[in-house]
């Protein structure tokens, strides 16, 4: 096991085992702030962990962040690792983050699709989906971002199990999705739900399954644009902001549509940078710049959520 998080290279890609081991080190070094909770097991029986950053209290309002629901989007998981360390080390020194954590909790799930991530290291670097078996087909896996109960089965998701955007047989059929759903519902006090993907430099809000505006569209758009302005200020990375349907394409069964419909107003999805034009194979030298600029946007959204209780 890593004896100190100081010896960990945040500018490198790591295996699932290394990340899980590092999480234990991080928790040990910040025992008063972070706990690691197992929220269930994946299809292939890997544990799914969430890091809970909390300074106390009971069932405080909380912010959810997940990274890496799509396995091959490696800079997402790497950004999750860097972000966890950033929250841990800035607490107590960054006044704004400290005040946030004095009133709210942050839940960060770094490996939201552990089976898929392990598979990208062992067998197929380009794997995107879960690894569940599809009865009657040799193709495996479901797109875990088409499997949520939000317009499930509608346009922008495939019913064909061999497709990379296969929605699955039913909403929440994937245990990885169900585990997150159970946690969010049983907690009942999440105020923001942020999902981090890669790549194409977008900050999106609901809906994906419908091209109609959500009731909070003006506010979500305004907060998103301000967040992106902060992000861009670091390296000039340009982002587009808008609803999933309007700035990419109609896609049903997505996580932030589900969270928004559950009542979590501040629901956003990031598509991280591709300034090097490497797609899913962003060189590891760009991990820290990517995570650093993303942090500025994440922090803006979290601060806004803190300052606008509902």
């Amino acid at each position, binding site marked *: 096991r890593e004896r100190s998080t100081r010896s960990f290279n945040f500018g490198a890609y790591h295996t699932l085992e290394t990340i899980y081991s590092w999480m234990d080190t991080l928790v040990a070094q910040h025992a008063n702030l972070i706990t690691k909770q197992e929220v269930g097991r994946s299809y292939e029986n890997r544990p799914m962990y969430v890091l809970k950053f909390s300074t106390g209290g009971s069932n405080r309002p909380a912010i959810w962040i997940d990274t890496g629901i799509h396995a091959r989007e490696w800079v997402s998981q790497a950004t999750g690792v860097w972000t966890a360390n950033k929250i841990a080390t800035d607490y107590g020194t960054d006044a704004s983050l400290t005040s946030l954590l004095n009133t709210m909790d942050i839940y960060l799930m770094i490996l939201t699709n552990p089976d898929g991530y392990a598979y990208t290291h062992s067998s197929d*670097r380009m794997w995107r989906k879960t690894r569940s078996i599809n009865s009657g087909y040799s193709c495996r896996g479901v797109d875990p971002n088409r499997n949520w109960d939000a317009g499930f089965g509608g346009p922008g998701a495939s019913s064909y199990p061999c497709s990379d955007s296969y929605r699955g047989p039913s909403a929440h059929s994937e245990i990885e999705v169900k585990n997150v759903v159970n946690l969010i519902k049983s907690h009942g006090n999440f105020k923001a739900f942020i999902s981090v993907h890669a790549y194409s430099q977008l900050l999106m809000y609901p809906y994906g399954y419908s091209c109609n505006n959500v009731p909070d569209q003006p506010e979500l758009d305004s907060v998103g644009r301000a967040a992106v302005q902060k992000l861009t200020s670091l390296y000039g990375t340009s982002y587009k902001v808008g609803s999933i349907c309007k700035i990419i*394409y109609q896609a049903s069964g997505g996580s932030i549509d589900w969270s928004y419909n559950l009542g979590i107003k501040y629901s956003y999805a990031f598509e991280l940078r591709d300034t090097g034009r490497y*797609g899913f*194979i962003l060189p590891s030298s760009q991990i820290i710049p990517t995570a650093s600029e993303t942090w500025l946007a994440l922090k803006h959204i979290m601060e806004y959520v803190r300052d606008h209780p509902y």
Partner: protein
Amino acid sequence: ERVFTGDQVIRVNVQSEEQIKLLQALEAAEEQELDFWLHPVSTELPVDIRVPRSSLSSVKEYLDAHGIPFSVMINNVQELLNEEKAAMEENQR
């Protein structure tokens, strides 16, 4: 372990609705085993396609035949993956 030797990722900066439809037709052609990293949906966003080596010539001919300009974003996917793997191993050491 699956290898991607000779696979390329090509980028199309779509210029018209007609080109989007032509690319969508290409996407529907399953026999070429194309992996659309970014899908053809709008003239605002590029389209990135990982093309297996075995389909490279036919895909490029299709794009040329329809006057769809493209550039090669990644010349050989496996070369990049080898670099990525070497960097990980070096870091682990």
